[in-house]
């Protein structure tokens, strides 16, 4: 399935949902709308929802790491939530969980970010 991205805002937190397959080809489609939204400066924190993501490879990891670095440099937090077994395995191999916390649901992510809002 082609890559799709959905952006939602809740309590000044940007909620980004990735759907379909995030590879090198889709990386720009994932990166650009997030960059555009974040550079407006209205949001400090981002929740990345991955439960509708079917496929990811190291190019997709690059997209997530890029946003993490951007946010970290501005005092923002990134939280990942919900992922299938394949996505979890690839993220685990990448070591990304040492940098970015992962929780089960958006409410869990919201409560994790509450202390930072």
């Amino acid at each position, binding site marked *: 399935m082609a890559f799709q991205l959905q952006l939602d805002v809740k309590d000044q937190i940007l909620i980004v949902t990735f759907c379909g*397959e995030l*590879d*090198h*080809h889709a*990386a720009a489609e994932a*990166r650009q709308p997030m960059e555009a939204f974040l550079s407006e400066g209205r949001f400090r924190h981002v929740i990345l929802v991955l439960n509708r993501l079917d*496929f*990811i*490879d*190291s*190019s997709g*990891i*690059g*997209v997530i*790491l*890029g946003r993490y670095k951007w946010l970290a440099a501005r005092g923002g937090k990134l939280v990942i939530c919900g992922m299938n*077994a*394949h996505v979890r*395995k*690839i993220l685990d*191999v*990448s070591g990304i969980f040492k940098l970015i916390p992962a929780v089960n649901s958006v409410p869990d992510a919201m409560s994790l970010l509450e202390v930072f809002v």
Partner: protein
Amino acid sequence: MTAIATVQNHIKFTFPAMSENESLARTVVAAFVMSLDPMLDELNDLKTAVSEAVTNAIIHGYDERNSGMIDLEAELDGRTVFIRITDYGRGIHDLWQARQPMYTSKPDLERPGMGFTMMEHLMDEVTVQSVAGRGTTIGLRKTISPVDMRWH
């Protein structure tokens, strides 16, 4: 389950080094191994490794110029899958360095330098042959678990 004859099959296809074809390449390989009835996890491992190798050819072999061709060969020998992905681009000058985790020759492109690490983690064996100015062949090998040996 009765023993079945050893499966021997192979395919070869050639496609332009465009990022649109990354999903095509991994989908073809997934379809090719379906006769082995792989577990979802094994199928995803193969798709991811193929995606990494093809992306490597497009970005590093051909510098994302949308020119040049990639050959993908896949072979079944019993329950073992052999895949070879070849580009005719600029080749890798330092193979040892390219295979180091987190090494990337293109940090400006948000490349995490994990392609080879990922392939090595997901496959039983990864081989790389490269000649500067001539191109690179990445070989992947993985044995699919026997259907009657699985926990259900």
